[in-house]
């Protein structure tokens, strides 16, 4: 027998379970698209997808609990540690909320495919964050990216959606190619693929490796929409179905940053003088470009897209600190950030369904009084994104600033502070629209859209907003347990 001579590596199924759960769910949903009758397909797919994300989240939690010391999996191609497990929990949570946002959007076609792809993207991200060599890294990246390319273009009847899909495909493909090229150069320099092996190869100052590092960082920066590699973000965020945008804004950022931090700290510790400066420069670029461009946006989804670029800048501050405090700051920041962006896009989705058109800052006018719950929630998300207290956004900013200051880079703190002041204008612009702009003509015109003037009841969406709100505020009050989780997770990388 030929098979007997191949030594198969030991597979730790629990470590792979979050990704596998989502892959399985994706398959079931896809079968449902064929086998389940049309009238029941939406409820079936959505329920299965939601259950899949919840299961993945729980498995991630179990994995976190049982992975006190990091272990290598499957011939050192993957890692089982708390860093990945915590990121998986956040990704799974984001996916579950995204399913809730999508629940009430009555899709006419591609219902099964939609949820199948969402679960597949989540599975890809769960796989991606565990990557421990350049091959699995690229595999995971492509896995979730391809699912997202299709998801963006899924509203085939909307030109904007097709445009978004195409733009994301081309620019995303470009980013992936850069990353692959960088990986090839690093492999060429060291002859190794594993993160730890690259670090141990002692070729840190090989020009080939340095160029490869720069290219890999660039490829990841494309995914994380870090300026100046963010140009796809506003178009894609605006054009994609809002539930997909919400998922991308939250989960892709978590995945990309978790992997970026792991890669930089474990594979390239000897080049830290170099990449911390590069990351700091990217942070400044993101903060400047994201905030200034957001000032000029009228479309709320575009504004939130630039806001996510600026948040990428804040996260990079934590990455550039390259310390346990920085890792903790990054993981903590991601939690309220994910909740705030999911929640904000959920409110946008609510308004979109009510008005049946794209939501601009003007068309939010008076929403605070007409829809008190959505209005108050959006108010909280905007304040959180701006770094006001009573939301985790403020403490997240405090943490990343502390990490940067602790590294000795006080000037980064100053850049972050100035960026925050600029950002107030557009975040408070939304609040102004919610509460202080009656704009009768606009309101009178809008009233025509929904029949009877009252929007359809959408308990799933309310639940999505409520969950996001609970995390946004809860991460302020109960920061201590979250930081402890982040602390243990970050310890895995600095062990």
């Amino acid at each position, binding site marked *: 027998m030929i098979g007997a001579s191949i030594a198969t590596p030991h597979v730790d199924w629990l470590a792979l379970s979050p990704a596998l759960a989502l892959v399985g769910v994706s398959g079931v949903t896809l079968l449902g698209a064929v086998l389940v009758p049309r009238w029941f397909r939406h409820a079936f797919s959505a329920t299965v997808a939601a259950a899949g994300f919840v299961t993945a989240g729980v498995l991630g939690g179990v994995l976190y609990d049982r992975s006190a010391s990091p272990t290598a999996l499957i011939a050192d191609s993957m890692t089982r540690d708390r860093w990945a497990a915590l990121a998986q929990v956040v990704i799974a949570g984001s996916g579950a909320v995204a399913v809730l946002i999508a629940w009430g959007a009555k899709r006419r076609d591609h219902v099964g495919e939609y949820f199948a792809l969402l679960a597949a993207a989540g599975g890809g991200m769960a796989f991606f964050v565990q990557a421990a060599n350049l091959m699995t890294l690229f595999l995971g990246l492509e896995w979730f990216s391809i699912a997202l390319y299709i998801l963006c273009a899924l509203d085939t009847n909307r030109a904007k959606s097709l445009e978004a899909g195409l733009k994301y495909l081309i620019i995303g493909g470009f980013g992936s190619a850069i990353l692959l090229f960088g990986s090839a150069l690093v492999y060429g320099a060291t002859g190794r693929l594993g993160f730890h092996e690259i670090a141990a190869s002692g070729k840190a100052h090989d020009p080939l490796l340095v160029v490869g590092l720069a290219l890999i960082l660039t490829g990841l920066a494309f995914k994380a929409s870090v300026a100046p590699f963010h140009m796809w973000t506003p178009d894609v965020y605006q054009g994609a179905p809002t539930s997909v945008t919400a998922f991308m804004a939250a989960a892709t950022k978590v995945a990309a940053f978790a992997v970026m931090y792991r890669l930089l700290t474990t594979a390239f510790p000897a080049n830290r003088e170099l990449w911390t400066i590069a990351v700091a420069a990217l942070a400044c670029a993101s903060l400047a470009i994201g905030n200034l461009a957001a000032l000029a946006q009228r479309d709320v989804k575009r504004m939130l897209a630039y806001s996510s670029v600026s948040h990428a800048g804040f996260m990079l501050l934590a990455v550039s600190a390259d310390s346990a*405090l920085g890792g*903790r700051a990054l993981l903590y920041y991601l939690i309220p950030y994910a909740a705030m962006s999911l929640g904000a896009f959920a409110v946008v989705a609510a308004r979109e369904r009510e008005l049946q058109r794209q939501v601009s800052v003007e068309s939010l006018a008076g929403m605070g*009084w007409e829809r008190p719950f959505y209005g*108050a929630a959006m108010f909280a998300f905007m*304040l959180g994104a701006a770094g*006001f*207290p*009573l939301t985790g956004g*403020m*403490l997240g*900013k*405090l*943490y990343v*600033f*502390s990490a940067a*200051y*602790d590294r000795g880079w*006080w000037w980064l*703190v*100053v850049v972050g*502070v*100035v960026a*925050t*002041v600029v950002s*107030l*204008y557009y975040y*408070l612009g939304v*609040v*102004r629209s919610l*509460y*202080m702009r009656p704009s009768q003509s606009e309101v009178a015109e809008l009233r025509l859209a929904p029949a009877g003037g009252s929007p359809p009841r959408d308990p799933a969406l309310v639940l999505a907003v409520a969950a996001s709100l609970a995390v946004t505020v809860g991460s302020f009050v109960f*920061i*201590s347990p979250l*930081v402890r989780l982040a*602390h243990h997770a970050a310890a895995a990388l600095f062990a």
Partner: protein
Amino acid sequence: MLTTILIFLPIAAALIVWTVPLPRGWSGGLAFVAAFAEVGIWVGGAARFDYGGDLQYSARHNWFADLGVSYHVGFFGFSLWLAGLAVVVCALAIAYGVWVDRERERAYHGLMLFLTGSIVGVFASQDLLLFYAFFEAMLIPIYILVGVWGGPRRVAATITFVIYTMAGSMLMLASIVAFGISQHTFSLVDSGVSRNNWIFLGFAIAFAVKAPLLPFHGWLRAAYTESPPEVAAILSGVVSKAAVFGFIRIALPKFPGPVDHFRGTILVLAALGLAYGSLLAFRQPDIRSVIAYSSLGQMSLIVLGIFAGSRTGLDGAVLHSVNHGLVSAVMFLLAGMIERDYGTGEFARLGGAAKGRPILATILMTAGMFTLAVPGSTNFAGEFLILAGVFTQGWGYAAVGAAAMVLAAMYTLRVISAVLHERRGDTVPERAPDLRSDQLFIVIPLVVCLVALSVWPNAVSGHSFGGTQGSLPSLGGTTP
């Protein structure tokens, strides 16, 4: 425990008002009850306070330990007085809101209660990050209150106000991070002193914006004239005192070196602000602008006292903070009532209101006498202590202060004569009702507080920094 109740009672009431669908009128009632319960709790606390002691009524819980941040609240003598000012002024402002019957009452009363709680939180904080959280939390309700219930140019006013304040706050956040990380704790009690001028400047500018001090006062007039009057009363009467608290609790004890280094600059700016504010107040066309610029002058005077470097000056600054809070609250509320009754606050269209309105005339005249610091009033005592304190730093400051007292008399008498006397304005009807009993209920308590303080100003000035010997107080273990 008392401090925690004082902070969270109004916030809890705000949550109830927002979330529970109360019948019309109930939310105002609930706000009213909560606000006066707050005053009651404070009075109870003040009665049992040991004015010779250190930090009292304190409570401390870890918030997040890895950066050394804790929920730590408590009162010193001076901060107890500031908190007392806050609960009294906020309670009467809420009473004013109930009297006016603001629309969207649930949102309105919830915000007023939330504001009350966060102001008390500022005065009680003993941890830098908690202080920052409350300091910022104050801004949220003010922003909405001005932006929704304010005057015709309210949106522009909120934008200027928020941008000024947040620019200051963000500098402060940078300073807090720098201070906290280098001290390994954010606790105001446990941390030592810093010699870093930049960190000090971050704090000082944030407080200078909040007060406001001279070059940072651009938001002042629009915010004070476009706010609803009761919010203007809280803004100028109480919120500006967050700067006083910050200077006394953070700047003086934590940055003794930088304070000495910048003392001259700050004193000169304060003296200029005092003269400038008083001069501008004299030329304003309406009641609220006069009070706004008068506030700029009075806050500058308080800062003179704080940076006088002597115990006398500090005692005077605390006393005068309370005085100014009460006086500007009463003036803004009266201005609101006049605007409501006659439709305008412009001097050109007012006048002759005293005829047939003895109560209005008496109350406005009395409040005016306190504003111009007539000898025998508590304001006179406060200004006297400040000027005596700052005299050691140079007689010039005291001379400016004394000149400003004359200017204060001029602008106050101008307000009084423009509203009450002179030719009858076109908006003032010949026969119109005087202040009614419900209006009196709102302003009389403030006047009574002022009269009581005039009888015994030492209640505040002699009971602010108890138990400390020497020229400057020690707060929570760190002696500058």
